[in-house]
């Protein structure tokens, strides 16, 4: 029995660059997706560069002026917590959490610890550390 055969959709994709490429602006300023998809995400203002695994830590107790969302967020991240976990515990979409956090970073209610991302030249000691951690599982 032979398995079905995959066909490459485009030739010479093997030379894809190691850096993740950001999608380019289309001619009509239509970004990101090949299909016309829109994220529903509250006020569509500026957003900080927040990744799913950016770690968020509260810098202050909720001020009297804090909204319920901000209060909930600050209570959750007294210890470092990823944005993905915040989204899960708050049952809010990632995009909404991102918008809320952008504001809270600006007003210095929280601190963000950036993730370590894949590099063109990978950091071997990082990979070794992850392997050691997995071995202990």
């Amino acid at each position, binding site marked *: 029995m032979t398995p079905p055969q*995959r066909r490459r959709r485009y030739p010479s994709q*093997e030379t894809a660059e190691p850096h993740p490429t950001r999608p380019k602006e289309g001619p009509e300023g239509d970004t990101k997706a090949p299909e016309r998809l829109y994220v529903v995400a509250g006020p569509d203002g500026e957003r900080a560069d927040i990744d799913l695994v950016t770690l968020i830590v509260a810098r202050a107790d909720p001020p009297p002026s804090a909204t*319920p969302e901000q209060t909930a967020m600050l209570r959750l991240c007294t210890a470092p917590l990823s944005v*993905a976990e915040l989204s899960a515990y708050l049952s809010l*979409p990632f995009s909404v959490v991102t918008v809320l956090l952008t504001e809270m970073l600006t007003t210095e209610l929280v601190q963000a610890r950036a*993730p370590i991302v894949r590099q063109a030249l990978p950091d071997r000691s990082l990979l070794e550390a*992850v392997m050691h951690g*997995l071995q202990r599982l």
Partner: protein
Amino acid sequence: MDFKGSDTIPGPRTEDHLPQTAQAAVKIVIVGGFGVGKTTMVGSVSEIRPLTTEETMTQAGVGVDDNYGSESKTATTVAMDFGRISITEQLVLYLFGTPGQERFWFLWNGLFEGALGAVVLIDTRRLEVSFDVIGRLEERGVPFVIAVNSFPDAPRYPVADLRAALDLAEEIPIIDCDARRRASSRDVLMTLLRFLHSLARAKAPT
């Protein structure tokens, strides 16, 4: 959007708190078609109960013209499971079980950008559901390994046949796994890490 209010929100259990020393996180994505075992794999190795992050999108109807004049849109909620493994007091690893359809990937800004690598789970009964995902990872330059999930009635192909069918380069690891077992899922992740390490060595031998 109905917000629950801060009193009713369950947070992490005390034992799930990361230490204050946690400085940075890395992530690995587990991709594959519908029902191949992504959630199972995330759950079997995660130190926390797997969580779900959701995103809502609307898709403008394409080629749908049965509603005269009104632009047809459908709202879809897309869920993604994830888990966590503490590596050191400073470093945390997150695993994301990512929907197979690439059109969902951009919903989560930074999901693939920056991931150390990917595990492609395949079910040999439905090999073709993974073709698209493999192509997309290649296009994005995300390094990956193939894990063949052991479903009882699934055909068992020799690795060489699978490699040829998936049109994979010789160096890309293909391993069997049982996503329900922690040790097996851990071995898959170790295989990915060893592969990433070999790529790093090849780029900067010393």
